[in-house]
């Protein structure tokens, strides 16, 4: 629920970048570029959020196009006020319980299963490295957009710090397991 509220404000924020209005499909493309790593949105989702924002009076259609997909949307004064309040609210996110599943596997690790466990850890590390590559690609794309990437880069910085720490922890676990149970287990 909280995420869907954040998503509404994220889309509202992207609409706010366009004082003269923005078409839904342009908005979708910008959402992909700016929010892509945090939220993957398809067209129906974008239009669902736009309809919700319009029903609340936070955005309005401008121009005379009757077809929903061709309408241009502008943020209203009320929408701007709500966006502003949201930005100043304290975030309710709590640290997510990272590593939970892997932690359980570690707790029940036994010497003879160490090679398999190391493979599980390496797969986990690969997943994080993939995530870093997608973040790096996102960062490069943002540079080519007509919007200032400064704030989006701050978000990417935050994810990178967390992922880097996770990788460091996994490597530490690998190294210590190998030290304890011998190189032949690696």
């Amino acid at each position, binding site marked *: 629920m909280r995420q869907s509220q954040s998503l509404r404000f994220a889309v509202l924020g992207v609409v706010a970048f366009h004082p003269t209005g923005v078409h839904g499909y342009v908005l979708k493309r910008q959402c992909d570029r700016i929010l892509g790593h945090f939220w993957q949105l398809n067209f129906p989702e974008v239009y669902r959020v736009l309809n919700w924002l319009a029903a609340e009076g936070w955005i309005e259609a401008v121009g005379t196009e009757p077809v929903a997909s061709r309408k241009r949307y502008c943020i209203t004064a009320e929408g701007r006020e709500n966006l502003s309040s949201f930005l100043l609210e304290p975030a309710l996110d709590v640290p997510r319980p990272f590593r939970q599943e892997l932690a359980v596997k570690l707790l029940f690790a036994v010497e003879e299963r160490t090679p398999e466990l190391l493979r599980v850890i*390496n797969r986990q590390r*690969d997943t*994080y*490295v*993939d995530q*870093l*590559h*997608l*973040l*790096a*690609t996102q*960062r*490069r794309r943002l*540079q080519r957009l007509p919007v200032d990437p400064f704030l989006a880069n701050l978000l990417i*910085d935050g994810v*990178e710090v967390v*992922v*880097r720490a996770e*990788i460091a922890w996994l*490597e530490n676990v690998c*190294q210590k397991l190998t030290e304890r149970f011998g190189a032949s287990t690696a």
Partner: protein
Amino acid sequence: MIELHHVTKVFGQEATAVRAVNDLSFTCPRGGFWAIMGPSGSGKSTVLHLIAGLTAPTSGSILVEGTDVATMSQAAAAALRRRSIGYVMQAASLLPFLTVEQNVSVPLMLAGVPARARGERVARALERANISHRSAHRPSHLSGGEQQRVAIARAIVMEPPIILADEPTGNLDQDGGHAVMDLIQDLNEDLGVTVLMVTHDPVFAACAQRVMRVVDGALEHDHDFARLRSPRDHATRG
């Protein structure tokens, strides 16, 4: 293109022998951008030294742009480095008594490029490294990130097809590191320069197209990001 075929490098002899590189093989294609990661002492930097002809392998062959570096004389290896390889290290290693412009022109002077032709090439390299505005400054007046950009300008002033980068972001903060990585990616994507980069930082390694993890001198893991790229990315990268 850089090719390593069953390359082994042993330092020392008998009881004190250290196998820094152990039967390592890979082929980094022309225009590729690959990263090498691994723990300290895993032989990452030695791999770059071998490719640059700074040290000879104990066994195996190393082809740089089709030329076998392993069997070259030191003079021939130095000529190959001047012609084909730009080397970027963790420390910028600029000459403190020269200006930025003069530092960048050093490789051209060593290669015997006439003074008249040097100016334009230095200006182009500085522009490419986004550091032209500092051309008259001495290195001590620059930030760490700026010094590294000058080092990169110096590495590309001979317009080499290959850049070997050994921990190019190692001395920089996060923002400085990202600026240097942007520059390296620009050189790779815009000019088609082949880049082989050693780094311990997974964030910067993930900017490459492929990450090789080296442990005890051997290839432990090869991570290719090609499967993550969309067809549009492939088309953009040409």
